[in-house]
């Protein structure tokens, strides 16, 4: 994957039709979200509540995690603590080995994506089956998700039809979504029925009761966990919320913000293991507790992974998830990437027009745009300011700080109109790429004013 958002986006935009479809489709999702939000008179009150609950929960995280773990263990679950991705992956592998499992059926989890669990398990001889339709398609194509809720949004049906022909022996040339979904239903049904271990992520953990809450539309999480004897939950420590009153707020916001549905088809609450089975909950830190100490960016921990900021983002819609170098794209991904490793992911910062639309749709009111702005201000301090832009900024600083200098520059500006094009638009002028300089007026406003208005 190319590390530079600008060049990757150029590649994405080469397929004009595909890019337009991507943009329009995500915008439709944004419109569905708006319709849902407008149908709830107390919508803004809910967003404010959700934000306050999360701020409270993440600033009392030690207390709530302990309460959650205690309640879960009382319910018969086993709670594991993983400080990083490596430890998380080892715990999963250990559990699989303990049960002599050679296969695990998974439902969608961005956390296991973050931990690169699938690759780790495959390297250790485990057959990993992703069971969310989009995730399964991508697994068969050996691609990462390009959106956190609609992972295969970048793919056209013909590609999926071809893939299924090869892997599932479906009818040649048939790329009808209903047909293809039905074929995968049959195929994965057999995997569900024969698995000993199932894995899920967690949308929420309730401290009061020890419940793990998983929201899906397909029912794949439940198909797996209700057949397997062992259920392993991977849960980021920031997913814990105080109680069911809090959960009520989030179940009202999540699907409305994500896909424009009033709620997901299934909102499952796992409290006890299946009779005779085991429930393992892995609480994963992997850098989250460090973020608590970062006042300017701690709000990212409020995120409930709905994807609304991607659907509304004019840059995401027109550049696609793969243009970002961090595994989570869009406004939230830009910020999470910077928190993970600024040196590695700083180029994503250019993927923002500072329109702040993300701030306005975020159901937990994360200040996404402000954060991106702040990261940009700090680029120079990490040695990543663009030298050409830095030079220009320094030049402008001199210009705008010296009125005399500024006035003479303005008077001379019309000369630029006459400069031959190749001298203005060349590889040294980054701002000239894709942009046209406006024509300078023959006279400055001040001189016009002095001549015509001022007496």
């Amino acid at each position, binding site marked *: 994957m190319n590390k530079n958002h600008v060049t990757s986006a150029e590649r994405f935009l080469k397929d004009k039709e595909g890019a337009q479809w991507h943009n329009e489709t995500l915008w439709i999702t944004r419109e569905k979200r708006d319709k849902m939000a407008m149908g709830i*008179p107390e919508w803004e009150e809910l967003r404010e509540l959700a934000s306050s609950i999360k701020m409270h929960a993440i600033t009392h995280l030690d207390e709530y995690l302990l309460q959650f773990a205690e309640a879960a263990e009382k319910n018969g679950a086993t709670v594991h603590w993983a400080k990083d991705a490596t430890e998380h992956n080892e715990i999963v592998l250990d559990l699989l080995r303990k049960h002599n499992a050679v296969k695990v059926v998974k439902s969608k989890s961005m956390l296991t994506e973050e931990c690169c669990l699938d690759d780790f398990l495959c390297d250790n001889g485990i057959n990993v089956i992703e069971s969310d339709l989009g995730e399964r398609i991508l697994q068969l194509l050996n691609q990462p998700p390009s959106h956190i809720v609609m992972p295969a949004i970048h793919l056209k049906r013909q590609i999926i039809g071809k893939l299924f022909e090869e892997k599932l022996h479906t009818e040649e040339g048939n790329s009808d979504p209903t047909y293809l979904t039905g074929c995968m239903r049959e195929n994965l049904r057999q995997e569900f029925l024969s698995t000993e271990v199932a894995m899920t992520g967690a949308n929420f953990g309730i401290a009061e009761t020890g419940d793990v809450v998983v929201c899906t539309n397909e029912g794949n999480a439940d198909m797996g966990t209700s057949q397997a004897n062992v259920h392993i939950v991977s849960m980021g420590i920031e997913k814990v919320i105080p109680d069911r009153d809090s959960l009520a707020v989030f179940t009202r916001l999540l699907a409305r913000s994500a896909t424009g*549905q009033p709620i997901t088809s299934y909102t499952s609450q796992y409290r006890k293991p299946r009779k005779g089975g085991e429930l393992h909950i892995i609480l994963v830190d992997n850098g989250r507790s460090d973020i608590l100490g970062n006042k300017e960016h701690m709000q990212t921990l409020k995120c409930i992974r709905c994807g609304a900021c991607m659907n509304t983002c004019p840059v995401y819609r027109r550049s696609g998830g793969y243009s970002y170098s961090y595994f989570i794209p869009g406004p939230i991904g830009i910020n999470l990437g910077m928190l993970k490793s600024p040196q590695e992911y700083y180029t994503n910062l250019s993927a923002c027009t500072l329109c702040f639309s993300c701030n306005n749709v975020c159901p937990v009111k994360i200040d996404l745009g402000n954060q991106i702005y702040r990261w940009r201000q700090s680029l120079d301090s990490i040695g990543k300011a663009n030298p050409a832009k830095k030079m220009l900024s320094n030049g402008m600083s001199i210009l705008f700080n010296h009125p005399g200098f500024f006035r003479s520059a303005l008077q001379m500006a019309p000369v630029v109109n006459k400069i031959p094009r190749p001298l203005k638009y060349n590889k040294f002028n980054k701002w000239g790429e894709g942009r046209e300089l406006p024509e300078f007026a023959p006279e400055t406003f001040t001189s016009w004013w002095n001549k015509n208005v001022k007496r």
Partner: protein
Amino acid sequence: MNSKDQILNSIRQHSQVKYDRPVIAPDAIQFSDKVKQFIDESKRVGGDAVLLKDGEDVNQLIANLYPDAKTIASNVANITSTMNPDLVDTPRQLNGIDLGIVEGEIGVAENGAVWIPQNVKERAFYFIVDHLIILLSKDKLVNNMHEAYKMQQFTGYGFGVFISGPSKTADIEQALVKGAHGAKGVTVILL
């Protein structure tokens, strides 16, 4: 130091300003006709809901709704079925059931969701059947999720699920398809 303590220590070390828990009592949406709203919403989420009329026989209604169902499974008293799902040895044996009939505990008017605390032997039952009928007393309809969570109860199984319409996906070009993995159709019968 074990990982648990390391994580908790790191949290304590990094935590700064503490924020209070807000009072969670929003002025949440209410409906003058919860039955009508619930039925409309059930249809909007791709499912269905029907109100049993006075004097109408529920078994007759089910037979009319799903005339082609061959394997019908239910553990609900006085419901006509061809098998009792509680008599299976493994959840795998529930595969291939045309129609499952279960009881729900709470219906939510704002989103068509029905709360079902596990009330059959295998939780797989709610997901694996081709079509699901949920029987729900119309007196158990609430306006919104805040009210629902105030009433939520669990059985000894320790599992429960809100179901709103059928299993669905739009992962292929955003085209909506019902029956991704779970039930292809869900009908709530309000009693």
